[in-house]
């Protein structure tokens, strides 16, 4: 039987309805007034406020932390608007013109998210003899200076559906900063979890944010701080490094461990945490930072270590050729050459510096290879976690500042 489907009573009219679809469209358009077209959307404006291309910030105040060898820089939005809201624990990437270079540095935000309402946020920088940018900032940044910053970045924050209600934070030195922000957020009613900070410092005098932490603990029972001094034995303080025993002593019920500190502390802490037999989901760490001694990584071809290669960087129409030492991340060579190229986490993870390698070979340490699967197959690299093994040609993305 031949198919004979009708929708209306008369098939011919059905056909006309089909033929008229275009005409009906035309009529609907013709019938409308020719108003000026607008494209203002609250949802898009919200996205822009949360994730601006960049924030222009002014140094509002500098606080010296004395023996802790660190300073806090209180930064304020230059345009008087609220600063981009962030999750306590996130970092901000500062974009700094230093000499001929444009470098970025990620710093955990040490202030409460509450401050963003007044356009403010704080970062805390510790003196670091090997730190190029840290020492520059400590020596040069003055009240009134302008800095370009990102919004809050990264996923080092408490997530109630994922993390245990009790969080044991392992902090070393300036690694206290994301936890300070979390502690403020708990005090301010923004976050709701129990935070026990095991804070490793060398001596009592060198403890960063001692008073701030004491004040928070006095204001909320949800935050506790245990100081662990490596170089001093004092009553009221734990002594030594942050070991599995110390963690167990202060942990109760189901708990998540969050770790933030310098590389050496992280490696030690990770070893101790492994002894606790926690589920992987209950152990979170802040960014590792760039690999320091890449030649100590498994699989690194030792003969490349001291070589200097040629790097050709293409960015839009621009093409720049510069030196690229094998022993530091390709991103550093790009920055030294005075190229404004995007980067944020500098730990291989966020992918913001993702660039196309069209010629040459790089070494990428496994632990900081945060690339997408397809990128690994198709020559996309994260220059912040890649090291030249030959002359390279790289196509880098543009920048917005």
């Amino acid at each position, binding site marked *: 039987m031949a198919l*004979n489907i009708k929708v209306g009573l008369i098939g011919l009219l059905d056909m006309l309805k089909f033929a008229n679809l*275009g005409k009906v469209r035309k009529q609907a358009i013709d019938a409308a007034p020719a108003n000026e077209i607008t494209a203002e959307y609250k949802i898009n404006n919200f996205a822009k406020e949360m994730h601006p291309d960049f924030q222009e910030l002014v140094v509002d105040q500098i606080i010296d932390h004395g023996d802790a060898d660190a300073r806090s820089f209180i930064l304020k939005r230059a345009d008087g608007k609220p600063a981009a809201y962030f999750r306590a624990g996130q970092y901000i990437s500062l974009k700094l013109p230093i000499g001929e270079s444009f470098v970025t540095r990620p710093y955990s935000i040490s202030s409460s998210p509450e401050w963003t309402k007044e356009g403010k946020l704080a970062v805390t920088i510790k003196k670091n003899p090997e730190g190029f940018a840290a020492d520059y900032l400590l020596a040069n940044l003055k009240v009134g200076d302008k800095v370009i910053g990102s919004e809050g970045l990264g996923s080092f924050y408490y997530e109630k*559906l994922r993390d245990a209600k009790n969080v044991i934070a392992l902090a070393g030195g300036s690694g206290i900063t994301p936890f300070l922000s979390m502690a403020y957020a708990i005090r301010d009613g923004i976050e709701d979890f129990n935070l026990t900070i095991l804070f490793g410092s060398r001596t009592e005098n060198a403890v960063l944010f001692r008073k701030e932490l004491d004040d928070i603990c006095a204001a909320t029972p949800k935050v506790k701080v245990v100081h662990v001094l490596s170089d001093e034995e004092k009553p009221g303080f734990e002594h030594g490094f942050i070991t599995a025993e110390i963690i167990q002593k202060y942990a109760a019920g189901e708990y998540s461990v969050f770790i933030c500190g310098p590389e050496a502390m992280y490696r030690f802490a990770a070893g101790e945490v492994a002894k606790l037999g926690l589920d992987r989901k209950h152990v979170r760490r802040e960014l590792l930072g760039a690999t320091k001694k890449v030649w100590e990584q498994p699989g690194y071809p030792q003969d490349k270590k001291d070589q200097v290669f040629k790097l050709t960087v293409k*960015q839009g129409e621009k093409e720049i050729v510069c030196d690229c030492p094998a022993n530091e991340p390709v991103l550093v060579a790009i920055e030294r050459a005075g190229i404004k190229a995007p980067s944020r986490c500098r730990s291989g993870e966020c992918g913001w510096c993702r660039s196309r390698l069209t010629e040459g070979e790089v070494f990428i340490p496994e632990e900081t290879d945060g690339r*997408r699967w397809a990128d690994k197959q198709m020559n996309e690299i994260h220059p912040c976690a890649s090291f030249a093994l030959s002359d390279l040609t790289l196509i880098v993305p543009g920048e917005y500042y």
Partner: protein
Amino acid sequence: MAAKYDVVVVGAGNAGISAAVKAALEGKKTLLIEKHNLPGGCASSFRRGRFEFDPSVHEICDWGPDDNKGDVRLLFERNGVKMDWVTVPECYRCISKYSDGTPMDISMPTGREPFIDKMEEYVPGTREAMNKLFDLFAEMKAAVKYMNDGTPNDSKYMQTNFPNVLRTCGYPSLKVLQALKLPQKAIDILSVYWCYLGVPLDELNFLHFGNMLDMYICRKAVIPHHTSHEISMQFMERFYELGGEAWFNCRAEKFLFDGDRICGVETNMGTIECEQVLANINPDIIYAKMMPKELVPEREKKLSTARKHNYSARMCVAYFALNKSREELGIDDYTVFFPSTSDTRREYESLAHIDTNKFSILLCYNKLIPDFSPEGTCVVSFTTMYGPDDWNKITPQEYAGIKDKFAKQCIETMKEKYGVDIEPYIEEMEVSTPMTFARYLGTPEGSTYGYELSGWDGMLARMMLIPEEFPIKGLRHIGAASFRGDGYSSTWINGDMCAAMACAELKEGGNK
């Protein structure tokens, strides 16, 4: 000095990457610019911990087997884009209520006969009507092929060969399914995919809906092995191989004109001169913000006014990486739909608000791709879509809480309807809201389907007026807001078609 290209593609979404490949294949000097640092738009991926998540892919239609190649497969083959797919063997499972309020839990297979058999099992007495429906699909497929083959359409030929198509395709889907005398329960089962187009069945044009159903059922869907980013990268690889250039983190700020003809693009990376622009940007944004007001055509102002900013599908997705395998957890489906009702009009209305929207679609990639995530883990996601009202009112301080509330609702829905509680096993999670899509895609209100494909603005009506849809010389709109509407398949095809038109125009104009 400005860079010079024949064709500039603005926006590397699905339509943009497809258009770029086509233009480069035609030998045009082509530049693809993208404001984000990745290609693909929705067709992308992101990493959290040891997991890689796909932000959007559910089921890609129109690929097809060797003996029944779909338009998407033909496009990939024609343009030399290589891709290994994983076939989705089943259509869908749906756990909901029938329109009469009785509980529904159905699993529909692919293939005409199995689908009809299964329907007969769930709703006895539907075989004859279902056969008619599939016969109509077959006629429709032939008609669509005829209409798309590039030759002028002869109405006599169409009346002789596709009479049923012509008689049904001017109507909304619900009317046609009712005319086939399908019982309401069968219509309820058939209507599950409506959300892929975002228009309720009493409004959604039948040709569009029927064609989609046919592609999913008869040709089966596919998904990428390694997230949508793999697909986008395969397009990019082909584009580079053909000599194309791409600039990332490059945002088009303004279009430049020579008289009334587009002649370039101003960006944060400098000015680019060109003959043709393929813009993967919503037209409202172009006309309101990216070109001189006096050059905006009257017809486009009227069109925009008539559309009333009626953008479609503000997606919200919760992604979970779980530290148990799907077998341990008891997840045995790739995709499960959890509508709160089978009445698509009522469902459409309830989607609008955060409090009333209980709809979600569950995906578990590991069901089809065991190594989608590390051994002993699996990845699931939940998708829904919202109206703009509630999301317009959210403050930054409330935002994280709203995301959590949505994620929690997804977990609860799965627990209640599917009997699996994933909450204790979450190792990584993320939530994408309309704001997230607005951030990365730049689409109005974070919508992902362009303008709603309803009534006079349906796909078929748009396609009938293609010559009028691009009134500015040298500028073509591509993407979900263009004539093919939303979806990976439609936007790839749309980008390819528009690039072909632009290249043809370059040839006629005697340009290089």
